[in-house]
């Protein structure tokens, strides 16, 4: 089976800085999440996949064809870039229509495609306003529209949800999921795990330009769960809570946060731990005011996986 996007032993250097380090990766059809903390090489990977960058070493192929200096292939690829840059003086409709025309669509087709795509991203109401007046969410939507307007087979979305409000986020996620169900191949980059998790079970983890892990999100989560989670609990009777928590088998350590009336727990089974919390109140009257995990973020997980 030909992968949609294939990296074979690819490295990319910017002078002395390594953007991508000996990456071999095959992205199959469907929606794939590209996860990594800031500076992991996600944007570099996407720019390599769109032929904007030339690999320093190795080969990048999209739909079986080399991408560098292969502008014909661009008719089958769409990219929603990370940078918040536009021809600000254009209206949203003008921008998307111009992108359609730049993609080689004839005047009538471009007009219809622009209308259709703007509708898809929910910007019909605002299409005649200048982009310079758009909110961040609108800008992300119109940026996605330009990536879709020529009906590409492969869509590469670089942090498409960054800076969006919850409504725009939900709408954009719906659009991405719909594209996947329509048979498009979509590679979505993000540094937020739960964002990608709700889009696709298939994810690729990058850190410092290297492939850390790839596969089903459940497998990745298992890897993540091996990493001791730090969970903070706040309660008035936090000393009794600490003593009680120490009795749990999966709790590896408890630290009292005196100034905050709370405790920090380290556990390798966070789901089981969370499951036992209601009983603490119901059976023992320990009222917990707040629970949060301050290290359930990719940075900590990546550090753990890279060390592994």
């Amino acid at each position, binding site marked *: 089976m030909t992968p949609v996007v294939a990296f074979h032993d690819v490295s990319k250097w910017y002078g002395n800085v390594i953007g991508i380090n000996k990456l071999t990766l095959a992205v199959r059809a469907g929606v794939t999440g590209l996860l990594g903390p800031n500076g992991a090489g996600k944007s570099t990977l996407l*720019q390599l996949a*769109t032929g*904007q960058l030339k690999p320093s070493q190795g080969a990048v192929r999209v739909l079986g064809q080399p991408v560098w200096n292969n502008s014909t292939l661009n008719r089958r690829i769409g*990219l929603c*870039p990370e*940078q918040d840059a536009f021809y600000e003086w254009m209206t949203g409709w003008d921008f998307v229509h111009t992108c359609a025309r*730049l*993609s080689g669509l*004839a005047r009538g087709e471009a007009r219809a495609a622009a209308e259709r795509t703007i509708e898809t991203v929910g910007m019909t109401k605002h299409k005649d306003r200048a982009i310079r007046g758009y909110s961040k969410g609108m800008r992300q939507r119109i940026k996605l529209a330009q990536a879709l307007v020529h009906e590409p087979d492969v869509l590469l979305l670089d942090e498409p949800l960054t800076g969006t409000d919850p409504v725009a986020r939900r709408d954009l996620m719906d659009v991405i999921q719909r594209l996947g169900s329509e048979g498009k*191949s979509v590679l979505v980059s993000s540094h937020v795990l739960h964002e990608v998790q709700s889009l696709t079970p298939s994810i690729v983890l990058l850190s410092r330009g290297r492939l850390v892990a790839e596969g089903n999100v459940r497998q990745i989560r298992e890897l993540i769960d091996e990493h001791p989670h730090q969970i903070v609990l706040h309660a008035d009777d936090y000393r009794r809570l600490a003593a009680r928590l120490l009795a749990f088998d999966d709790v590896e350590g408890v630290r009292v946060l005196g100034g905050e009336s709370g405790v920090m727990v380290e556990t390798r089974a966070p789901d089981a731990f969370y499951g036992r919390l209601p009983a603490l109140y119901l059976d023992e009257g320990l009222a917990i005011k707040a629970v949060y995990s301050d290290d359930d973020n990719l940075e900590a997980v990546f550090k753990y996986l890279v060390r592994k």
Partner: protein
Amino acid sequence: MVDAATTTPTAGRGLPRISRVSAFWTLYALSLRQHLHGKRWLVMALMFLLPVGLAVVVRLTAPDVPPEALEFALVMMFVPQALLPIVALLYASGIIQDEQEEQTITYLLLRPIPKWAIYTLKLLSAMTTTAALVVVFTALTYVAIYVGAETPIGEVAGRCLKAASIHALAVITYCSVFGLISLLTNRVLIVGILYTAIVEGLLANLPFSIRLITVIYYARLIAYRTMTFRVPLSDGGSKDVAAEAWQLPAVSDAKLAEHPQLGTCIAVLLIASLACTVIAGWLCTQREFHVKTPEKE
């Protein structure tokens, strides 16, 4: 899992028809629109109003100055020496750099347009804009110089047409040169100003063969071979101001036989433009246009 080769492009619709001509035309038109939306053309227009304003002032304060002398000083000396290289430099230096700085080049690189074509089309739009500015303001300068003068309007129109054409050809060549320089260095404005001062300013005014490498030398020769620059003197005679100012041996060699002929001059400028464009286009195909890199971050 779906094989990439069997992935359907759209649900229920075929691939849209793609026309490169349409893409090329749109990029050219987009670049022209960018020029109009920027403030650069207003600045350029103000600069080009300088010779117009000077002509008006001289005509009002020194009516004895022959319009032919004023025409030579402003249209044939000031404009080609000072304004044409600057207007070309300001437009051509931004052909790619402006899109990179504004991070909009991504939207062009993602289209089925080869990089050499992106450069060439944007260069063509810069040439169109600069040539249009030059033609309009050369005509205005002629109006300011000759309005109310005794010179027949047909003769003035002919001279204006020739001067505007020569200026347009020169500015197009400058655009090609500065466009190429902009791909070779990030300090294109500094290099361009140095080029203008040293090559087009100093070397072009030396009566040696080194001036054969300058644009302005060929522009002057085209002007000299197609127009007359005899300014009437108070004693009833006339003086060839161009031969003296441009170091041309019109007295010893009236036909300037040792200098390139008209056709050669035009061909040299056009071939130089073409060569610079081809080299720059080739450079573009070899280059990455970084928008965001770890280094820049």
